[in-house]
């Protein structure tokens, strides 16, 4: 997209292509305008290379003070609009000051780029990676072109992954023991477990398992926490009796989950919780929340 400063018509077309554009996996990315585009997917430590083509519009030559391409990793806080924080900034000079009177193509390469954080679109914060091409011009205004790409980092399964087993209750009312098979789950995993009823003195209507995402941004006095319920999965219909054991089998793949992000660049965290909710006949809710760690399983390529 042309981003023109101070001119009415675009002076030239800039197109950015990736060298492995045909073979590289593309994923959808939701843009600011609400539309979704397919963009390439990278992992940290990968090489990002390609070509940048600049073509003047309608034959008119373009004078410039230099052309460069930057690879930026950015965190944007929504409550602090236009407050971009670049945690990664790499630049490649493409051309010295001069003229472009016909289509010119510049190759570029960023090798083994450290991109430790994943692309993230949240409620109050956004983390994105972009390639930014800038054609510097003095008074006429620089011409800039952006290309988003997505970064996701895969990892091996955690070496330690204990199950979660706990007994909770309300004295003389309700006593349950719940068990989830792991404390750390991959994004495509299945939560397997059970709820065992030790004491039931209330009339239960049903039981759900919620997946909640808690996004906290800022720090200190400026901390914002947004909690979203991403999944509401009915575990049980009807009232159990003491001794009954209800199975849990919740597939995570249908839900839009991300790995757990802890203190990304000291700016934000995204954590996940399983919230077990029991509702009684009078619509009173009894719940127990438990944090789980999400990770992205896979081979690093």
């Amino acid at each position, binding site marked *: 997209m042309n981003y023109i400063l101070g001119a009415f018509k675009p002076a030239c077309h800039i197109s950015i292509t990736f060298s492995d554009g045909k073979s590289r996996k593309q994923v959808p990315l939701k843009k600011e305008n609400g539309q979704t585009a397919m963009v390439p997917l990278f992992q940290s430590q990968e090489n990002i290379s390609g070509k940048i083509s600049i073509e003047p519009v309608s034959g008119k030559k373009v004078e410039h003070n230099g052309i460069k391409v930057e690879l930026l990793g950015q965190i944007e806080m929504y409550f602090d609009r236009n407050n971009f924080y670049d945690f990664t900034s790499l630049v490649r000079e493409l051309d010295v000051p001069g003229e472009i009177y016909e289509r010119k193509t510049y190759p570029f390469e960023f090798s083994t780029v450290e991109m430790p954080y994943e692309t993230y679109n949240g409620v109050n914060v956004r983390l994105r990676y972009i390639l930014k091409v800038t054609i510097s011009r003095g008074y006429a205004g620089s011409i800039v072109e952006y290309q988003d790409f997505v970064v996701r980092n895969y990892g091996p399964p955690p070496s330690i992954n204990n199950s979660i087993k706990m007994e909770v209750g309300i004295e003389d009312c309700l006593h349950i023991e719940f068990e989830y098979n792991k404390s750390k789950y991959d994004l495509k995993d299945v939560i397997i477990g059970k709820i065992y009823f030790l004491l039931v003195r209330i009339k239960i209507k049903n039981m759900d398992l919620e997946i909640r995402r808690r996004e906290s941004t800022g720090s200190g006095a400026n901390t914002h926490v947004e909690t979203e319920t991403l999944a*509401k999965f*009915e575990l049980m*219909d*009807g*009232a*159990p*009796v003491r001794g009954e054991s*209800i*199975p849990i089998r919740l597939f995570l*793949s249908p839900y839009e989950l991300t790995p757990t992000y802890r203190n990304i660049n000291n700016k934000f965290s995204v954590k996940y919780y399983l919230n077990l909710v029991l509702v009684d006949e009078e619509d009173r809710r009894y719940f127990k929340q438990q944090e789980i760690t999400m990770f992205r399983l896979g081979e690093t390529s």
Partner: protein
Amino acid sequence: MMIADGIEDEEKWLAEGIAGIQHNAFYLHRAVDSNNLREALKYSAQLLSELRTSRLSPHKYYELYMRAFDELRRLEMFFKDEERHGCSVLDLYELVQHAGNVLPRLYLLCTVGSVYIKSKEAPAKDVLKDLVEMCRSVQHPIRGLFLRSYLAQISRDKLPDIGSEYEGDGDTVMDAVDFVLQNFTEMNKLWVRMQHQGPIRVKEKLDKERSELRDLVGKNLHVLSQIEGVDLEIYKDTVLPRVLEQVVNCKDELAQHYLMDCIIQVFPDEYHLQTLETLLGAFPQLQPAVDIKTVLSQLMDRLSNYAASSAEVLPEFLQVEAFAKLSNAIGKVIEAQVEMPVVGAISLYVSLLTFALRVHSDRLDYVDQVLGACVKKLSGSPKLEDNKATKQVVALLTAPLEKYNDIDTALTLSNYPHVMDHLDAGTNKIMAMVLIQSIMKYNTCVSTAEKVDVLFELIKGLIKDIDGTLADELDEEDFKEEQNSVARLVHMLYNDDPEEMLQIICTVRKHIMAGGPKRLPFTVPPLVFSALKLVRRLQGLDGEVAGEEVPATPRKIFQLLNQIIEALSNVPSPELALRLYLQCAEAANDCDLEPVAYEFFTQAFVLYEEEVADSKAQVTSIHLIIGTLQRMNAFGVENRDTLTHKATGYSAKLLKKPDQCRAVYACSHLFWVDDQDGIKDGERFKLIFRHNWT
């Protein structure tokens, strides 16, 4: 009215539910037709959400369920056709589990499960196990019941039975059994729980609703019985114990009654016989309110029929000691259920007796044992007032009579009279009549004094007044009928051996003497004639063994007869007695026992003189005397004279002249007898006529 509104509302909700299903079905069909799996899953989940309702009674819910069921059948066909939707069955199995609401999710899972098993990509047992476990998520009684019923339905033909195409490795039959048993257990728990859920309802309505769903639970037992691989061994070791465990533990009377019934109906009789102890062991553990007697009776009936089906089966009954076990079990049940009314206990005994009569008809000791147990129960309870209980006791007593057509067998049952003792006077008499009728019907003759004694003990209600009852209370007609029956009975008592016959007569006499004035006129005559018959028999046996003490002689019998007839004086019944004396006289005459005959005539005349007051009676009596006298040929001249004189004399003294004439007329025959040794006394003859003309 509140209730009417409720019904109307339900109709409305049902209509809404059906409309919801139809609406989603339309889109579902469209999705299926265009091979769109995602859409198909979406609309089928929505469709199935109609089943999440809590507003319908079981009856209405069933209607809704059936609609959904039909749609699921079509959906299953779509699922099966991978080429159309492009999703492997394994992926599909996961995909349906993404559904957010548990009830639609599980219905879909079971449907895919069916396809999965059919595809043979996984062992049937694994899929079935998963399905039956996952269904635990639905704890709502009605919804859970129907869901599991669906599971049972689609799994029926896919059990890993031996010989089936789904047969697996390892203990495949046990896998099939485990699955069905688990589903059964969970369904029963849900069924029992129905009563605790929802608003308080009237018990009758609740029971009715529950009854409507009972077959859903019972079907599982039927499936178990159909599994080829379930042999006696498995039934005994696994199936029966686990089913009984659930039946006992659920502590619900409705369920217990129905399920015990089911077990008995559904499994072969041969199995019941071989597991009798285990099966019976459950009964005392059931809730007190369960109508055990009906179930036990059912069981005994089935076993009786089984025994009757082939003779080869009978040794089995003895080998497993069926009778002893049943007898024990009944005892335990009666003991455990203290609240059981007497009628319940008795009807149990009736069933047991019927069983014994049908299966072990040669074992009279069994029959007597049952009667004994009954006596024990009756002794422990207050006097029977309950009509039903009384009827049962009568049934108990009648059964052996009908089985063994001869009374002899019944008479050997030592407890028989004890049972009768517990009947009230009225019923006692009815029973006595039944006894007599039985004898008459089968033309049995009671042939020993001992048996007669027992018999008359049994019918003592007819023979005499039992303490506390007044003979006056009885209807005339009924009384007559009773006594006539007794009279007829007397004629059925017979033995060829004169000694024994005499004993019989003595025994009868002993009993009827206690009968009182009302009864004697009925009972004495038949006894007299019976004795006279004996006399006539002895007449023909003149050549007795010389030197032996022969108690049964005509003389002795006549002595006895005298005593018997004398009893009529207590009634008083002079005319009857008179006739009987004359009969005896005639018999004595035929035996050539002149003094005996003379004595009888004397007695007759005494009666005539002192007791026969009525003029008409006098006429009849005197004619009788004359007639009898006329036939006498044993008298010597003197005796004959005396008697004739007397007869003539009384004749002349009759009240009315015409009677006098006729009587004297008749007397004239006494002087002229036409046979060879007959008296011909012309002089006397003339004397009489002269006397008359004056």
